[in-house]
């Protein structure tokens, strides 16, 4: 990296005006992230034309601040009301919400703020230091690798499923079936979608909201009191939460890196990385059974990964103009609007490197804002969990429907929420893994599309996934090995243990 340009960027960043836009961006981002449905793409698209009077760096800093803030903001609704504010916070619900039920909402919120901020700072620093290497890595990930990442995620079903593995696999398969609805990627067939409302399939955000928010509200309707159970005292220190995140540096760093890695793959993005990081935390834990019932490490992993995704998704966006998601598409629109062309010049000292550094440094500062704001103000929202559910349920239900409908204004999403609300309610009651189901729903399309395209590339040969010599794709066989390790590792380990034990 060019040190002089770096110093110049520090100089450019620390002005009152620029700092104002950093803070404003993160603040807006937290709010749009926390409101279900009102995700970062919509928030950023609304702000985009308003950035016209700003100079280029402030405009981009504002947009990127919204993006970053929303990744953290999504955890607020996930923890407090079991509703993913943004889909990339879905895994935060698994342990964040049980913590709220135990009266530890404030702790969960502070874990989330701290893990988000540390992972954000870590991954952006990595991006600043290693951008040339990372750019090369992004190009190594193509269609076959994307398929394998989806399979990796599906293999995680065996890790995250507690209790009956058969039920877990069944739930995962049911999730995959949901993604078959809609137009087929390889023919002109429309599967179960005579109406155009189903042409693009069943929206997984609506499925998530139904499975979690609505199913949980149905359950709460049968209980008295607030979300926090019975007479638990609302306690749980803010400091305690911060300490928990700091005490798990490996989880933070690993999840941040997973977020960055998977986030840099266009089309996979934050939601997939979120689940992969969570599953990895479960897999590597000494006490995997405690996940799903309020294990703080689950929140750490989930929240570290989605903030890591921000840095990851910037690599293809800035260096090639490739939008990995709607959010980065709007960001690229912002760059173009301010006469900045994504491309290698963004990382060239004679080009726009100064702006790139300023933007990344602003993100670092933005993560500190997340930390301060998260620890000081957001944690107070924990008291929401003490309010009687008679007031909470209608609010959450209305917010869930409105928010989901706002995403693509498709009435079918309303039906989706209701149907999957009921399904989620009974899945929990009969001990079917909701996480396995969600993994199927999130990954099915990615797996199918990329499998078909990969096989077109190889003329139908599956060797494209395993033979690095013929196709020059070294990452594919590595991913295949990792998948095999996840699937068969536990059996092999047990067999070895048995042999050694005898």
């Amino acid at each position, binding site marked *: 990296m060019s040190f002089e340009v770096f110093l110049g960027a520090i100089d450019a960043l620390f002005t009152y005006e620029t700092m104002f836009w950093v803070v404003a961006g993160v603040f807006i981002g937290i709010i749009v992230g926390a409101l279900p449905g009102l995700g970062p793409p919509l928030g950023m698209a609304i702000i985009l034309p308003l950035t016209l009077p700003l100079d280029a760096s402030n405009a981009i800093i504002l947009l990127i601040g919204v993006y970053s803030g929303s990744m953290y903001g999504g955890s607020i609704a996930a923890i407090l009301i079991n509703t993913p504010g943004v889909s990339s916070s879905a895994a935060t619900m698994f342990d964040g919400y049980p913590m709220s039920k135990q009266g530890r909402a404030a702790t969960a919120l502070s874990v989330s703020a701290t893990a988000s901020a540390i992972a954000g700072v870590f991954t952006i620093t990595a991006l600043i230091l290693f951008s040339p290497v990372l750019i090369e890595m992004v190009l190594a990930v193509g269609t076959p690798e994307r398929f394998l990442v989806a399979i990796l995620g599906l293999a995680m079903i065996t890790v995250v499923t507690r209790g009956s593995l058969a039920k877990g696999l069944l739930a995962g398969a049911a999730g995959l079936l949901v993604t078959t609805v809609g137009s087929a990627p390889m023919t*002109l067939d429309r599967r179960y979608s005579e109406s155009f409302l189903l042409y693009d399939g069943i929206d997984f955000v609506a499925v998530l909201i139904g499975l979690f928010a609505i199913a949980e509200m149905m359950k709460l309707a049968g209980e008295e009191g607030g979300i926090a159970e019975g007479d638990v005292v609302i306690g749980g220190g803010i400091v305690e939460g911060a300490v928990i995140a700091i005490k798990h540096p490996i989880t933070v760093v690993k999840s941040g890196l997973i977020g960055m890695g998977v986030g840099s793959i266009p089309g996979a993005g934050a939601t997939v990385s979120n689940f992969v990081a969570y599953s990895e935390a479960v897999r590597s834990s000494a006490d995997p059974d405690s996940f799903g019932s309020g294990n703080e490490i689950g929140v750490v992993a989930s929240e570290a990964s989605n903030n890591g995704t921000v840095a990851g998704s910037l690599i293809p966006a800035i260096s090639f103009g490739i939008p990995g998601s*709607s959010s980065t598409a709007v960001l690229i629109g912002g760059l173009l609007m301010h006469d900045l*062309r994504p*491309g290698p010049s963004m990382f060239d000292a004679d080009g726009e490197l100064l702006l790139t550094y300023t933007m990344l440094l602003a993100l670092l500062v933005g993560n500190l804002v997340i930390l301060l704001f998260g620890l000081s103000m957001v944690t107070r929202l924990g008291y929401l969990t003490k309010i009687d559910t008679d007031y909470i349920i209608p609010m959450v239900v209305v917010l869930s429907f409105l928010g989901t409908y706002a995403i693509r204004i498709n009435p079918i999403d309303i039906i989706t929420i209701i149907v999957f609300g009921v399904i989620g309610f009974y899945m929990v009651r009969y001990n079917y893994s909701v996480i396995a189901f969600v993994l199927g729903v999130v990954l099915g399309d990615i797996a199918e599309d990329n499998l*078909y395209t990969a096989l077109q590339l190889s003329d139908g040969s599956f060797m494209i996934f395993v033979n690095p010599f013929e196709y020059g794709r070294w990452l594919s066989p590595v991913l295949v090995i990792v998948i095999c390790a996840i699937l068969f590792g536990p059996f092999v380990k047990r067999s070895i243990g048995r042999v050694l034990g005898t």
Partner: protein
Amino acid sequence: MDRRRFLKSVGVASAVGTVGFSGHAGAQEDFPSESLTWMIPWSEGGGTDQYARQLAPVMEESLGESIEIDNRPGAGSLLGSEWLFEQDNDGHTFGTVNSPGWEFTWRVEEVEAWEPDDFEPISFAGVFGYTIIANDAHGIEDFGDLQDAYADGDLDNFAYQGVGTDSHLITLLLRDEYDLDWQTAVPYDGGGPVNEAVISDEVPAGIATNTSAIAAEESGDVSAIVNLMDIELEAFPDIDEITEYGDSLAYLTEFRQMQVAPADTPEDVREVISEAVEDAVEDDGSQEWAEETGNILEYGDIDEATEEFDGTVEELEEQVDFEEFQERVEEEA
């Protein structure tokens, strides 16, 4: 306007008449009387959305009312169109469609509930279309080089934007009629993924829109090598034109961002919106935006828009054997 189109219009007019549409005499003076809704049948951040968000603020000034941009993505822009079809025809609701890609999708999906001709054109605000991009690693400089490379077997794959789309048909036509002898056509999920695949050299060449081709060139690894449209591209003044190698493909490759209103929206009201679009297109800020982003702003008034709009479906039917196309899509799968 041919006879068939005329008959259809009469049918729609009488149908609407029965549900209480009464004359709009003097509409122009009162219009607009409330805020307007501009339906964009694509997501936030896409090309069509960016045009609308650029033009809307200037149009608001001209019209004296606010404009809400309403993104209704889905079914390759058909879902939003279906919604627009059912809206009031008082001019306060209009939308943008990208013609003739929109008509193409409508035809392939065999929509029966409405026809493109049911809508009333207002204006067009921009033009975009397809080019072919290739990865620089293969030393391709023009379309001739690309033809040779595929013919010699140096290259195999060619990328396009989704099964059954116009870019799929163009890909087939390039091989049938323009001697581009690719071995496998590889579908990607839209323009962004095609660009990415060509930049990373997963596929040596593919179809990209002119604006995304600019972005792809900026990556330093990719060049636009042939313009598939008839209009000249300022961003690529020196590249080949497909017409040097065969007939024009503009009926498939050149899109106008057409503003349309629901059936029987009165002409005087459409005129008011059209003038606002003109102001917005000619605005200095918009022109500057176009120059910076490589988007092409080009205003066409009601008459010009109508001329472009009318008969598009007929022309597509004339040029394209859709049944054969659908059969070939199924065969490939």
